[in-house]
């Protein structure tokens, strides 16, 4: 038997490295200990798997250092009952069994730092097939049959972009992978690179062959140090085995792959801004046309896809485009990976066939809302997307159906919110983000988002005015139509969708001076429930501004004029007597 420890960023943050060294300390050399990337069940990290050959014998969850000895003994004595108490429950396991994994097929299974591990799972077979038996045109045709669309957010047909780059004149062409996963709340691409870097390399090589590119770049955001290290090692290993470089696998196809680390700018997720950044400049979008397929990196024909798009390619080549297209809906084929987070019971990475509903993902796979709270909304597409309310939970996951709600498919961030989340503040949160991240090139985005942010701040501060909602809507329209790039054009989406589905919350803030979710501090009102208060005086002692009065064993009162809404009284009350209104 061998022990495999999940060491993606989430696992490491939860303590996987400590568990690893504790296991090392107890095990002697005859026990095989390995690592894998992100299993996707972040809510159960650290995770330790026990394998017999290639069969998973036990998955142990929320493992602590103190469990190391038991784990080692269980393996040594071939007695897994010793670790029964750590085994994953059937209910939690259903998080995985309800998924269909293509892009993530090796995540949490293969060892990301070992090329042999990838090869054992059929790795680089698709590349061999392409180089030895398919023309570039046939590859593009296969991708066309698959219906694969760009997983970065816009959903543009992948074959079309490849074909445009192939048809462009010029010998020097570039292939670029967009791994600048800037959408706050999304971590699919990080997981793929950290857990299965060779899959990305293979997908990129197939694309490079199809468009005729000799040079490829992966633009990774600097916040992902582990991804950069593992991808670097994978490139080195693949080069040694002649899977990268000159005359790959003895054919006439040559391609080099380099990593470029980004330096932190959300706008660099926009393809032309990314190209500017690759050239070492400020990442400001270019006017299109010309499109990158004609004039991209160094003004040469270039093709850009995101990580997840490439991660699907080797599977499609080996299993046929038809097999991929058999999953999904009429207009959206294959699977999509989502990063399920927020107020969800089981958060992590979810890959499902298109066509499932949002309810399936949030309630069946994610297990619904934490702490028995009520579902309020789900945010898709980050700062370019929108909030979808409960009434629309049966919307199917499909590019068209999601766009019809006002949100977008996006790159895969799926943040779930409960009744305690204020939707006006949510819109403000995203506009704060876009204001800071706007590159400043065009007026509509630079100033428009700023003004939107100011109005939203005024509303959450309790200083909203009549007509503010209409003003927001008008401003949103002009930013949408006037901004230069996709990011500016979609920046108003969080505002528009929250107004569309949660207008009553805006009205409560403006007209009644009330935040229905109780989140906006300026509008919060702390009140003591006299029937619950025992007069213990603790709150009065804790209050930093002496706003609470009352004598011992008598119900206390809060002077709302003095109250600074710090919440200390509520967090200290032992009788749950303080309410927020």
């Amino acid at each position, binding site marked *: 038997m061998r022990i495999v420890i999940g060491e993606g960023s989430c696992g490491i943050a939860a303590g996987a490295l400590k568990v690893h060294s504790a296991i090392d300390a107890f095990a002697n050399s005859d026990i095989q200990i390995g690592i894998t990337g992100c299993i996707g069940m972040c809510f159960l990290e650290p995770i330790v798997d026990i394998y017999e050959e290639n069969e998973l014998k036990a998955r142990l969850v929320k493992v602590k250092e103190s469990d190391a000895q038991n784990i080692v003994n269980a393996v040594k004595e071939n007695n897994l009952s010793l670790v029964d108490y750590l085994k994953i429950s059937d209910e939690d396991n259903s998080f995985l069994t309800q998924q269909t994994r293509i892009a993530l097929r090796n995540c949490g299974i293969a060892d990301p730092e070992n090329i042999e591990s990838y090869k054992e799972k059929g790795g680089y077979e698709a590349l061999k097939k392409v180089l030895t038996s398919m023309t570039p045109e046939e590859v593009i045709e296969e991708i066309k049959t698959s219906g694969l669309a760009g997983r970065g957010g816009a959903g543009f047909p992948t074959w079309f972009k490849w074909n445009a780059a192939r048809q462009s004149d010029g010998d020097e062409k570039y292939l670029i992978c967009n791994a600048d996963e800037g959408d706050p709340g999304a971590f699919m691409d990080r997981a793929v690179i950290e857990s299965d870097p060779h899959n990305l390399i293979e997908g990129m090589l197939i694309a490079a062959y199809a468009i005729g590119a000799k040079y490829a770049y992966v633009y990774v955001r600097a916040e992902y*140090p582990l991804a950069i290290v593992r991808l670097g090692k994978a490139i080195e290993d693949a080069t040694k085995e002649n899977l990268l470089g000159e005359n790959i696998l003895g054919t006439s196809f040559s391609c080099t792959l380099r990593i470029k680390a980004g330096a932190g700018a959300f706008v660099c997720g926009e393809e032309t801004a990314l190209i500017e950044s690759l050239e070492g400049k400020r990442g400001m979008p270019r006017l299109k046309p010309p499109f990158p397929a004609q004039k991209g990196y160094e003004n040469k024909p270039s093709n850009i896809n995101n990580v997840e798009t490439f991660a699907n390619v080797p599977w499609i080549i080996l299993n046929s485009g038809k097999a991929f297209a058999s999953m999904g809906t009429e207009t959206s084929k294959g699977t999509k990976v989502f990063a399920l987070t927020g107020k969800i019971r089981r958060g992590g990475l979810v890959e499902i066939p298109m066509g499932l509903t949002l309810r399936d993902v949030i309630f069946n796979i994610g297990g619904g809302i934490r702490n028995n709270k009520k579902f309020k909304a789900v945010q898709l597409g980050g700062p370019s997307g929108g909030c979808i309310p409960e009434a629309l939970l049966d919307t199917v996951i499909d590019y068209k159906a999601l766009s019809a709600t006002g949100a977008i498919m996006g790159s895969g961030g799926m943040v779930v919110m409960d009744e305690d989340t204020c939707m006006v503040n949510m819109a403000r949160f995203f506009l704060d983000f876009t204001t800071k991240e706007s590159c400043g090139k065009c007026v509509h985005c630079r100033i428009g988002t700023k003004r939107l942010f100011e109005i939203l701040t005024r509303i959450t501060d309790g200083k909203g005015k009549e007509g503010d909602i209409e003003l927001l809507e008008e401003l949103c329209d002009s930013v949408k139509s006037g901004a230069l790039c996709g990011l500016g054009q979609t920046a108003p989406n969080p505002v528009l969708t929250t107004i569309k589905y949660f207008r009553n919350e805006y009205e409560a803030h403006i007209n009644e001076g009330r935040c229905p979710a109780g989140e906006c501090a300026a509008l919060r009102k702390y009140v003591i429930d006299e029937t619950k208060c025992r007069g213990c005086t603790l709150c009065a002692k804790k209050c930093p501004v002496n706003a609470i009065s009352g004598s011992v064993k008598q119900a206390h009162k809060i002077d709302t004029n003095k109250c600074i809404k710090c919440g200390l009284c509520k967090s200290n009350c032992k009788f749950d007597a303080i309410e927020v209104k």
Partner: protein
Amino acid sequence: MCENCSKSDLTLLNDVLKEFASVRGSLITILQKAQEIYGYLPVDVIYYLAEKTGNTPAKVMGVATFYTQFRLTPVGKNLIMLCKGTACHVNGADAVEKAICDYLEIKDGETSADGLFSLKTVACLGCCSLSPVMMINEDTYGSLTPQKAVEILTEIKAREEA
């Protein structure tokens, strides 16, 4: 160049310049390496790099100020990167930020008086399932509460002072 500018040891940049100065499109990489050396980008380093890479100082400064990774002032011994991504926001990152600010008596972007900590809020660290999250130097801390965050800082402080 100004008279009051910092006087950095520019010879430390020799290796970086040797490798990258003539490679087109390497300005961001060079600035990243320079920041690794000095901890931030001193003004004299920016002028020097401009000269050596054939750019104007304005262009180098433009790139340095565009990306959030680059700093123009020195940071404390421990850099706290507090995530304020969507998942962290929904799970209470604001309260954690307030607790850290109160404890260290600084605001976002500032360094504590003892020089031990600098606080920087960032857009997303990609550990959304463990939100709210912060990174201190290379270590990630998840599932934070205001209390837990202060405990972690207290512990680091005690270690530094020991």
